[in-house]
């Protein structure tokens, strides 16, 4: 970096955001921390923070991790071909292509998930169509597969958009140059497109993986409520359990784990930052 002083001045534009984070993220978080570290009588306790290690909670957390990780992987695998196909067809008019991906999400989430239930259920639309061509009926509703379909559907746009933004910005000349030098399509992807899309990919991973860790509506409706995610447990503690302390404790410890896990991503992120701004 040639001018660190100049860059430091640039950090000042983040001050409104810093104030916002302090007022509406950090301070409310302290409220939650306070609940997590006290019991009903208001005495200091670390019991709730360690409750995450009870076998039931570990199981729920691992299942959530499985769903979140699976969802992220499927989203990545579906998103790259999508973006490359869009680029291939010259769908570069940003607004329009973005809209096509985002428009379905403007119908209410719960309505869309209920619609999926109608598609996937035993007597549902999918089985009806499959029956017409002599297949099925398939038992998809109320299985982990249905949950996976639901979460991938829900989060796919959040993976496509950042990768799309990153890949569309790649200069066509760069790809042409690689081709002129004899690179095949796959090599162009591996050596040019993919490396340049990594910052977008990382954002996509965060936007898919992190929220899907605590989602539970999809598993309740499409999974038939037979499997328990950590999001269900936290929700239940706050509502039917009426135990804000336990709910806050679980939430805080889960947060710590995921953030530690993400520290690794954050390392590679900064590396990316250094290498791109050469």
């Amino acid at each position, binding site marked *: 970096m040639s001018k660190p002083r100049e860059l430091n001045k640039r950090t000042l534009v983040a001050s409104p955001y810093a104030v916002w984070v302090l007022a509406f993220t950090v301070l409310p978080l302290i409220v939650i921390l306070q609940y997590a570290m006290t019991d009903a009588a208001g005495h200091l306790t670390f019991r709730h923070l360690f409750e995450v290690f009870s076998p039931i909670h570990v199981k729920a957390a691992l299942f959530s991790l499985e769903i979140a990780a699976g969802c992220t992987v499927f989203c990545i695998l579906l998103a790259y071909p999508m973006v490359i196909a869009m680029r291939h067809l010259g769908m570069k008019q940003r607004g329009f292509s973005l809209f096509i991906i985002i428009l379905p999400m403007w119908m209410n989430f719960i309505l869309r998930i209920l619609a999926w239930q109608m598609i996937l259920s035993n007597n549902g639309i999918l089985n009806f169509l499959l029956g017409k061509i002599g297949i099925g009926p398939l038992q998809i509703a109320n299985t982990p597969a249905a949950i996976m379909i639901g979460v991938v559907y829900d989060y796919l746009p959040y993976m496509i958009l950042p990768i799309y933004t990153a890949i569309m910005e790649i200069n066509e000349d760069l790809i042409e140059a690689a081709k002129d030098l004899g690179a095949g399509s796959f090599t162009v992807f591996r050596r040019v497109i993919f490396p340049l899309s990594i910052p977008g990919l990382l954002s996509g991973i965060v936007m898919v993986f992190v929220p899907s860790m605590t989602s539970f509506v999809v598993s309740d409706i499409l999974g038939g409520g*037979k499997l328990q995610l950590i999001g269900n447990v936290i929700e239940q503690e706050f509502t039917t359990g009426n135990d804000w302390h336990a709910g806050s404790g679980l939430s805080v410890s889960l947060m710590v784990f995921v953030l530690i896990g993400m520290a690794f991503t954050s390392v590679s992120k900064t590396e990316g930052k250094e290498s791109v701004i050469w």
Partner: protein
Amino acid sequence: MIGKMKRAALVGVCVLLAAAMTGCGKKSGPAAELTVVNYGEYLDPDLLEQFEEETGIKVHYEEALTPEEMYTKYKSGAIEYDLVCSADYMMKKLIEEGELVQIDRSKLTYGSNIGDKYWKFSEAFDPGNKYTVPYFWGTLGILYDTTKVHGPVDSWDVLFNGEYAGEIVMQNSVRDSFMVALKYLGYSLNTDNEDEIREAQQLLIAQKPDVQAYLVDEARDEVVAGNATMAIVYSGEAYLGHEYNSDLAYVVPKEGSNVWLDSWGVTKHCDNMDAAMQFLDFLCREDVAMTNFEYIYYSTPNEAVIAALSEEEQADETLVPSDDATVNCEVCTQTDEAVTELMNELWKELKAE
């Protein structure tokens, strides 16, 4: 005779007062206001407008999804509700915590429309009927598809004997699921005996492989659509289910079940008791209760409304549960923190299986 005259006079006074207030309201700044919380879709919105027109009282209406969410928001002090409508056990909890104020029932002109039977039900959680006014009620039972069952459905046994494996939809709710298991085992659904509760959990765990899904609001639709043979639902849901699919029938199992009662109460934050009473009285009035009943189609405790129903409707167990059906039923009054915590833990264990 005197009673009748009195009532007529009162109505007259009320109408005059209402007219006067509407007049005043329009001229001199803000009139009385009420902040009301209720379940979603649990009051015909047109009635709110009608109430505002008749009385000049402005209603801020809030909807809650579950009693627990309502309680969470209420307790935070974020909104000071004047009137609360919620489930039996939640009203008990609010009474025990001193959140509700006493209502003078005799001041409700139309309070007598609510049948004695229902006042007696509410004694279970509001002894002496000091704090609450019944609103809607019903039972918990089994909604099933008559074309798919073999043999009679009159016992909770059908859910646990494995005959309908994979065709059962249970309620995704700690309370409702435990109620079913406890009643099947012959215990009280308000038990605080840990052994009984654990036995109920074992029963539910053994049943889990046979359960197609644990759903809440979608349970009814699964039976209507033919995805499941039977589901545990509330009687009001069963009525709707039957409307959409005439093959469906509803039964309150002979072992008994839960009879639930949603009621109104006035909170200690209410600083306009008159307005609150007017609101409660309004809801008890025949014409209003009728309009509301036709919007919601849950069982009403308003006998004037029941009397006006057709014979067919009166005979419908989902609309007007008979005394026979409710003979073994109990009102849920469980508010003990330790029991709630235990059931909550056991439910998590069950879900983790």
